[in-house]
C-alpha cells in the first residue's frame, strides 16, 4: 500500500510554496516569457518596401495591402505563426514578446 507515501507527499507540498502563480497584469511582475516567444506583431512602415510576400504566406488573412503599396494588419485574426516576420526581406515585421493582445477597442487591433 502506498497511501502513506502519497500522504507524505501531500503533506510535504502543503508546507511548500505552491507552484501555481497569481496572474499579475503589472508589467515587470508578470511571469517572464522566453526570448523567442512569438507575441503581438510590430510593423515598421518606413522599412516596408511593399513586396507583399507576407500577404501571400499569411495563413489566416491577417495582412492586406493598402493603396500606397504598404500593408495593414488585423491582429485579432493573427495566429502568431511568425511566417510573415520570417519571409520579410527588410525585417519590417517583427513579433514582440507581448502576449496580452486583448483589448476593449476593436480598432486598436488594426495595425498600419
Amino acid at each position, binding site marked *: 500500500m502506498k497511501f502513506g507515501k502519497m500522504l507524505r507527499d501531500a503533506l510535504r507540498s502543503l508546507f511548500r510554496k*505552491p507552484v501555481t502563480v497569481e496572474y499579475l497584469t503589472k508589467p515587470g511582475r508578470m511571469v517572464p516569457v522566453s526570448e523567442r516567444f512569438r507575441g503581438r506583431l510590430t510593423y515598421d512602415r518606413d522599412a516596408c518596401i511593399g513586396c507583399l510576400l507576407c500577404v501571400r504566406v499569411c495563413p489566416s488573412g491577417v495582412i492586406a495591402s493598402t493603396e500606397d503599396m504598404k500593408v495593414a494588419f488585423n491582429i485579432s485574426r493573427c495566429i502568431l505563426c511568425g511566417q510573415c516576420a520570417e519571409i520579410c526581406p527588410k525585417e519590417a515585421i517583427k513579433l514582440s514578446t507581448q502576449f496580452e493582445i486583448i483589448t476593449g477597442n476593436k480598432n486598436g487591433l488594426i495595425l498600419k
Partner: protein
Amino acid sequence: MDAAVAFITSFPLVLVVSLLFEGIDRKIHARMQKRIGPPIIQPFYDLIKLFNKERIIPVTASTRVFEIMPMIAAAASILGASILLSNTLSGLGMIGDLILVMYLLAMSSIALMVGGLASGNPYAAIGFSRKMSMMIAYEIPMFIAIISVAFGPPAVLTIDRVIKFQISTRLPLAVSSLSMASAAATLLLCIPAAASVVPFDIPEAKTEIIYGFLIEYGGPYLALAKIAKAVSNFTLTLLVSVVFLYIPSLLGEEALINLGISLSICLAVSLLIMFATITVPRTIFARLKIGQAFKFYWMLPLALSILSIILSVIGL
C-alpha cells in the same frame, strides 16, 4: 446563557462556521496539490453569486418537488447543526437528542436526492440509485454507533447529558471505554461517505455522472444544496468532536463555566477531524466503484459498530 437565545444565535453561527470550514478545506486541499487555491471566504462569494442567478427549472422536472427539496435539505441540516451547537453553546438540555440530529442529517441528503430525481435527468436517476446504496452502506453503521452510546457508560442520548457525563468522568468519551472508542472510529470512517468526498463521492462523481442528482440544479437551488452539504459536513465533524472527543472535559467543571472556551476547543477539534476525514482522503485517494465502497463499509465500519454495541452491552 439562556437556552432559547443560544438556539437562535446558533443559526447564523452554523452558517458562517460551516462555510468557513468548507473554505479551509478547499484551501488545504489546494495547497496539498501544490496549488494556491481559492481564498478562504470563497464559499461566501459562491453563494452570493448563486443567489443572484436566475432560477432554471428543467422541462422534464416535476416543478414543486424540484423547487422545495433544496429548501428542506438546507433547513434540515441547519436545524440539526443548531441543535448540536446550541447544546454545546449553552450547556443546557434542550429539544432534540442524538437520534434527532442523525435523522435530520439523513433527511437533508434524502431531500436532495429526491429533488434531484424529480428533475427527470437520467444522470440524476443513476446518482439517486448510487446514493441509495451508499446510504444503506454508511447509515447503518453510523446509527448503530450512536445507539451504542445509549447502551454504553453514559446510558443517555441527549447531547447535554453526554457532555455532562464526559465532564464528570473528566475524560473524552472515546478514550473512556473500548466500546466508545470503536463507536468513535465507526463514525470517523463513515464521515467521508456521508460527506460524499473522494474516495466515496460515487453518487456525485463528476467525471462519471456529472454530480449525479445535483446535475440540474443551478442558481439559488444549487446555493441551498451547497449550504445543505456544507452544514451537514460540519455537523458530522462537530458531532464526533462533541459526543466522543469532548476535550474541554479534561478541564472538569471549568468547561461548563467558560462555555466560550470549550466551544472554541470543540470547533478546533472538529476542524482537525475535518482535515483528517474529509480533506486528506479526498487528496490522497482515487474514487472507488460502488461495489468496492459497499464492500468496505460492510466489512470494516459495520463490524466495528456491532463490536461497539456488543462491548457496551457487556459493559467494557
